[in-house]
């Protein structure tokens, strides 16, 4: 019944899956973790990115290149979304919580249905040299697509960590997250910085979307599954911690993979949400919280 080899394979697969989860959550880690925007539409934007990648891939583009090309456009989209959110809710202040949440919820619905109307409910996938092949490692076979996602995830996390610690704007974003009124007193404009940061978060989400469609076929309703996963990772990580995001992604990936092996696929979706509930109930500031 229980085999050590199988467990090892589950853990290895879990690590790859975990890095992928970290990569799809990192945009949310910025938007929600650092900026406190209740961005429940994050997974929907990601699925939208996956469909844009799909469109470009039909013209023979490599999905990763497509994802990179999409980033500036998503950056602008993110700035627009934040601007709208700011004007409509943050500026008014009172009760922004409930309405802001409802707004992003509605936005997610609109994106999802827009995709259904544009592409239908069928699953879509892309083709590339590394999709469908796998790397043999002794008895184990590791799908190349997971390795690609793993590589991109590591690069993305490293780039963002460097950005937030080394560049002026990056540090300014962290400053907004820590103490917005203080920044205002210094004469800086927190809204512009947050707008910029939200743009970056959304640009990263475009690349996440490209990875999403590399790892598996996508459908418009996929964002509902990823609400749990991305928020579980971000909350588990402690809001806004980039390295924490990777660690949390790994925890989720490995636990999901083990549950998948031991109990079967029908229990796997509950793992992310179960983990999320436990963390929220016991340690809402997350494992690496600020």
């Amino acid at each position, binding site marked *: 019944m229980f085999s050590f080899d199988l467990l090892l394979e589950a853990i290895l697969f879990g690590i790859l899956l975990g890095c992928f989860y970290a990569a799809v959550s990192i945009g949310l880690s910025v938007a929600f973790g650092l900026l406190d925007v209740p961005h429940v539409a994050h997974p929907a934007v990601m699925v939208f990115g996956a469909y844009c990648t799909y469109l470009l891939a039909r013209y023979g583009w490599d999905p990763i290149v497509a994802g990179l090309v999409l980033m500036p456009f998503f950056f602008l989209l993110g700035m627009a979304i934040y601007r709208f959110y700011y004007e*409509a809710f943050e500026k008014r202040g009172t009760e922004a919580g409930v309405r802001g949440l*409802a707004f992003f919820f509605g936005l997610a619905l609109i994106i999802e249905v827009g995709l259904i109307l544009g592409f239908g409910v069928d699953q879509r996938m892309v083709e590339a040299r590394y999709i469908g092949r796998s790397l043999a490692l002794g008895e184990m076979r590791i799908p190349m697509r997971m390795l690609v996602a793993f590589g991109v995830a590591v690069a993305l996390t490293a780039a963002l960590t460097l950005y937030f610690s080394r560049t002026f704007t990056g540090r300014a974003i962290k400053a907004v997250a820590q103490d917005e009124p203080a920044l205002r007193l210094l004469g800086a404009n927190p809204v512009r910085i947050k707008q910029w940061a939200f743009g970056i978060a959304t640009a990263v989400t475009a690349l996440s979307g490209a990875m999403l469609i590399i790892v598996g076929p996508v459908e418009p309703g996929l964002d509902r599954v990823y609400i749990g996963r991305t928020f579980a990772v971000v909350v588990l990580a402690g809001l806004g911690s980039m390295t924490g995001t990777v660690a949390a992604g790994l925890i989720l990936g490995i636990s999901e993979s083990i549950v998948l092996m031991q109990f079967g696929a*029908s229990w796997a979706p509950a793992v992310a949400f179960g983990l999320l509930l436990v963390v929220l109930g016991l340690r809402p500031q997350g494992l690496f919280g600020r």
Partner: protein
Amino acid sequence: MKAPGRPFWIGAAVAIGLAALLAGTIRYEYFFYAAYIPLTFVVLATAWNILGGYAGYVNFGTAAFFGLGAYTAVVLFKSLGAPLAVQILAAATMSGLLGFGAGLLTLRLRGIFFAIATVALIVIIQTVFINWRYVGGATGVQLLRPAPIAPFTSYIKMLFVLMALMAVTAVAIARYIETSWIGRGLRAIRDSEEAAEASGVPTLKLKVFACTVSGALMGAAGAPMPMYLSFVEPASTFELNYSIGALAGAMIGGTAHWLGPVIGALLLSSLQQVVTVTISNEVNVLVVGVLLVVFVVAAPEGILGLLTKLRRRAPTRGAPR
């Protein structure tokens, strides 16, 4: 407010009477199939508003409470052949208990954290029922409706009148909460939880109470659903659309007054039915999304807020007060 309550109770009696009259006169059964759904959403939106509107805690998990209620009814029906009234009471109890648990979560969670935790409830409970063979697992189970009870000639008419009764009950409960000290306490929590706690409002007790009542009503609304469909299956029972409908109904109608969710839910789900039938199911969800966004941005007080504004503006145009 003069003669508080009398117009309300007259209205409630008229609503139930109207439902009974319709059941007695209209022969066309599809009408009751169609009308049952908006009534369900009246219960859901009203229940959602007790926590979301008064206390400001956004619950995305309506589907969890609704689905748990539906499955509680199915388990009782399959194992004991329990009558519908018992099923509804049991469903309300189970979902009330779930609401109690969710209420305890509010001790630590607010805002988006609470909202996300309630989404987690949907998926976890749904997963449990997907894996429970006795109630059909992922494929679901067919249910054979028993004969309708005495004065009714058709089961669907009975469900319609029952749901109308439940809607009126839910609204009466919400109205009671709104106008009593409980509602004042909940509104204090919404405006500033710290200030409320500091002024001696028993915040945790009130939040747990609101969660429990809200959950119980949602569960009760879910209980007759398996009988309505003669079928139960996890994916559609825990459908996120129930959460969306409850939230959107309340937000669109207006969350400050008990009448808001009633208007919002009736308009929204009737519109949805029309759009589903005439255009498509996808456009129907799109309509909800767009309306929700438009209302939270442009009319944060909902339809009721718009009406109040209109009424306030009217006298200045020369109408005598």
